[in-house]
């Protein structure tokens, strides 16, 4: 049984489910006991947190692009909304990120609603281009409202030391568990979507819009729901991003390289699968750390980008369904 396959809920047997659960618990346990291991230092924990953050961002993008088939190239907009909303509320009004996260999510939902209403009736590439235009507009907006956003210099959180209230810490360890919880919750949301009526509608729209309408699916409403859900998830992950990195600037939020980093986990791991962004995100950060190390030693700048590029080429050419999709197909015997 393909228990890790998307939307195979109807055909799961109990043995398969148990195996799948064990398989899923293994990486969770590995991350959870990481700080207890003798050779693990803050550097490794921080790298793992980075991986968890990009996994969760990848999971969010996977909802709209992988399950829904909407190529949103400007998802940094929602990351930025999460980061900036949380940061501005905290720095200027003293509102803790525990509340800021929901404000950011709300902002992202509203923005997705407006942006989606304007662009989702466009087909394919035009929607993708419109999302890029939105990102560029957001860069200008953040630069314009310097007082609030810090302009091009970016926005740095006021540091409170170790503080639950401010969701801040001197060590990366609390973020390890925060990130782990977020990834698990997002994984559960992805599985729920894949098995739900909404998920079926989104996949139908992804496969064939005209046929979906002929099956009674409201294509526009389905796309809008998917985009809003993904936007909210991205903004929530954005808050974790902000609390961990303590700063955001227009490039880090809306820039091209960030947009690519949001897409890589799902693209590498497998679009539209629940495990894809997890496998892809872990691999992406692992490679980035290794190549960073290599780049410093060998003094080659931009080695990580080169490795990303080669990975992406490999996936596009040899495993277009990503790593998870590749193995699923092999298990299906094709």
């Amino acid at each position, binding site marked *: 049984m393909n228990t890790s396959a998307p*939307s195979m809920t*109807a*055909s799961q047997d109990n043995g398969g489910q148990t195996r799948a659960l064990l398989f899923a618990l293994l990486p969770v346990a590995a991350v959870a006991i990481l700080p207890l291991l003798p050779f693990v230092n803050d550097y490794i924990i921080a790298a793992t947190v980075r991986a968890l953050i990009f996994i969760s961002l990848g999971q969010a993008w996977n909802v709209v692009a992988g399950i829904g088939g909407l190529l949103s190239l400007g998802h940094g907009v929602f990351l930025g909304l999460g980061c900036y909303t949380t940061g501005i509320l905290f720095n200027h009004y003293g509102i803790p990120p525990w509340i800021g996260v929901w404000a950011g999510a709300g902002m992202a939902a509203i923005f997705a609603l407006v942006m989606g209403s304007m662009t989702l009736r466009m087909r394919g590439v035009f929607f993708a281009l419109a999302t890029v235009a939105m990102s560029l507009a957001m860069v200008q907006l953040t630069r314009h409202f310097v007082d609030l956003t810090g302009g091009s210099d970016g926005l740095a959180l006021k540091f409170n030391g170790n503080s639950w209230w401010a969701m801040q810490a001197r060590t990366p360890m609390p973020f390890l568990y925060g990130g782990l919880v977020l990834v698990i919750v997002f994984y559960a949301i992805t599985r729920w979507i894949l098995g739900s*009526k909404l998920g*079926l*509608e989104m*996949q*139908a729209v*992804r*496969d*064939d819009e*005209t*046929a*979906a*309408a*002929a*099956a*009674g*699916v*409201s*294509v526009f409403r389905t796309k809008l729901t998917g985009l809003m859900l993904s936007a909210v998830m991205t903004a929530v992950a954005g808050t974790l991003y902000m609390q961990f990195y303590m700063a955001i600037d227009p490039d880090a939020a809306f820039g091209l390289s960030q947009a690519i980093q949001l897409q890589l986990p799902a693209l590498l791991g497998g679009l*539209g699968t629940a495990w894809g962004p997890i496998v892809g995100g872990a691999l992406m950060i692992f490679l980035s750390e290794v190549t960073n190390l290599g780049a410093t030693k060998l003094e080659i700048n931009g080695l990580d980008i080169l490795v990303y590029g080669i990975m992406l080429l490999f996936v596009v050419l040899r495993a277009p369904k990503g790593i998870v999709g590749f193995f699923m197909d092999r298990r299906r015997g094709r």
Partner: protein
Amino acid sequence: MMQAASTMPAQAAAVALDVKNVARHFGGLVALRDVSFTVREGEVMGLIGPNGAGKSTLFEIISGNMPPTKGSVSYFGEDCTNAPAYMRRRSGMCRTFQKVRLFESMTVEQNIRVAASQCLPEGRNAHDEVASILSQFRLEAQAQRRPSELTLADRKRVEIGRAIAGHCRLLMLDESMSGLTHDEANHLITEILALNRTRGITVIVVEHVLSVLAAMVNRLVVLHNATVIADGTPTQVANDPVVIEAYLGTKQKALK
């Protein structure tokens, strides 16, 4: 308007579809010009015409994928000219596509479930509906397969199953027999006629294989040069000098 209405067997039945003075222009090109006909509930109607006659355009207008330049479409007495395609489907106006369009990443069962869960009236169970469709089209064994693993005949059956799942009063088939062997086509026709008989579904078939159509429909509408040139029983149409002149040419024997 309807010269053939008096010859209809289902004369007393309700009007399922009323196409009135529909025209469609693409820039300077006239794809449809003043097309009118009605279909009564329970009828099996064939729509024929040579390539470029406007069949596909008419089909897209009726199913809601393209607005007409002029004219109106009513479905069971209600004007649906401006209703979106998915709303028409939910009210039971169902269609297939000339080239089978299934959700390729989903299983056969999921393909049917999407439609069933959208279009079922309140209080009915989508799971039961999917099971009933699968059994009606003898697709139980293929339920967990992906469309790419099926034969063309099975893909067409899945598409018809998806088209009628949930709620169907009018089924429009776009060249469903093309690409099938003689036996497969006959089989499919039997199944379509069974839907008409047992579920009372009104059927419109667009087809260019005339012998196939003549055997299954009780009425033919002939489209030629963007307009309706004949409307009647297959025999009437076959003997209509205008049709013979314009469309069938010397091949009118194809109908016999």
